[in-house]
């Protein structure tokens, strides 16, 4: 009963929130999410050159300006691990069992390639932007 009420309440609140957004805000939000999606993977892989469990990874990324929701980050870690880019192990820390993630040996060269791609995209966007300013 509580859960049904909770789900309905959440859905209604979410929809109402969506409805209060203007078309431009909505469009921007969609584009922003699209833009962020690939960047999140890159940020996570970069940060996991050091070992972290889910929550500390989230904090570390937030401290560097990359806020990620729990329901995005934790499933993302699972997917990246399933793809072989991360390795993980359960370990006890502060009397709690936690799953620690780290960039895998297979993930390291992929991260390098992604970084190169990221830099090339950045350069291209900057070049196009400067060109637009000059005209």
């Amino acid at each position, binding site marked *: 009963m*509580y*859960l049904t009420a*909770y*789900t309905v*309440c*959440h*859905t209604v*609140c979410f929809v109402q929130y969506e409805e209060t957004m203007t078309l431009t805000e909505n469009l921007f939000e969609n584009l922003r999410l699209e833009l962020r999606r690939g960047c999140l993977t890159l940020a996570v892989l970069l940060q996991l050159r050091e070992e972290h*469990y*889910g*929550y*500390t990874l*989230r*904090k570390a990324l937030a401290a560097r300006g990359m806020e990620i*929701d*729990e*329901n*995005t980050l*934790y*499933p993302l870690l*699972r*997917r990246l691990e*399933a793809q072989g880019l991360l390795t993980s192990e359960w370990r006890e820390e*502060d009397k*709690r*069992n*936690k*799953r620690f993630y780290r960039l895998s040996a297979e993930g390291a060269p992929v991260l390098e390639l992604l970084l190169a791609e990221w830099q090339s995209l950045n350069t291209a966007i900057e070049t196009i932007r400067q060109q637009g300013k000059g005209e």
Partner: protein
Amino acid sequence: MESLEQYLEAVGRHLRGARRDDIVAELRANLEAQLDDKQAELGRLLTAKEMEDWLKQLGAPLQMAARYQAQRYLIGPEMFPIYWLVMERALGWAAMIYAIVSLVLLATGTPNAQAVVDALVRLPGVLLWVAAWVTLIFALIEYGSARDPQKWQGLAEHAASLPKIDLAQRERARRHGKHKRTFAHAVAEAVFGFLFLVWLLLIPQNPWLMMGPGAALWKASPYALAPAWITFYWWVVAAHAVQLAWLCVELARGTWQKKHGLRHAAVKAIELIPLNVLLYAPGRALLVLRNPLRDGAQLGATLSGWNEGLHKAILVIAVLVAAQIVWTLVNQVWMRGRDGAQ
């Protein structure tokens, strides 16, 4: 803490498979650590209201669980254009076939307004069935492609990766009938093959599906089909079911592009079996009299003439099919020899 447990339990209920407990345990560890941090920052426990707000922030349990699922759609964006194309065509054909069948039914029955209304009312149901089957087939293909993308690479071909057009080769292929089958073509073959099989299976109870208005005339005639036709019919059904199953296996394995000459010959060879059933029907009797005692004296000679004519016609068809098989085999041997020489 109790509401966090409730939340985790609800997430677990929406998760499937062996990973469920592992995912929930990991989520618990992360959320508990986060909760500890929050409470340490405040210097007290969260109130019930604060706890509720925080859980709301995490998203509904169903949403949280859904994020952990690998595939959250029936038909993905790559497959969707082909699915849509096949769906449009299948629905178009189904509507046309249904319209023809309904018109025949209305023409052979007693046409009245209620029959027309009934036929129209049934149409959405028929179209829904076709749409459901097409969707099911594509959902299975999507599932297969998600599990083994290597086999389904052909689907992702785009202009840049398409092979260069060799006009001479294309002409040779045209002459030898060696075209590469497209995915849409293969799926359309499977969908229409399935519809054809359904049609075949409906014929014994509804002869008008094959004969149209002639079915009523045939029923009133003194002639009937010999038992050999029943064996023939089931062989035809079996042959078609085998072909359909073969095509489905090709789709599942991602090998629909190959159009095997040998397979073509094998299919033709299977077609010879039902023809042989008719050729070797006892006494070459393909038609019999419904009431031999009453009509035997009057129609016996005509019946023999009909049976003799039908036997000859089936013999000609069998010879043509056998010649096709030989032609296909010779062609295959010749092409393999030529490919080997190149």
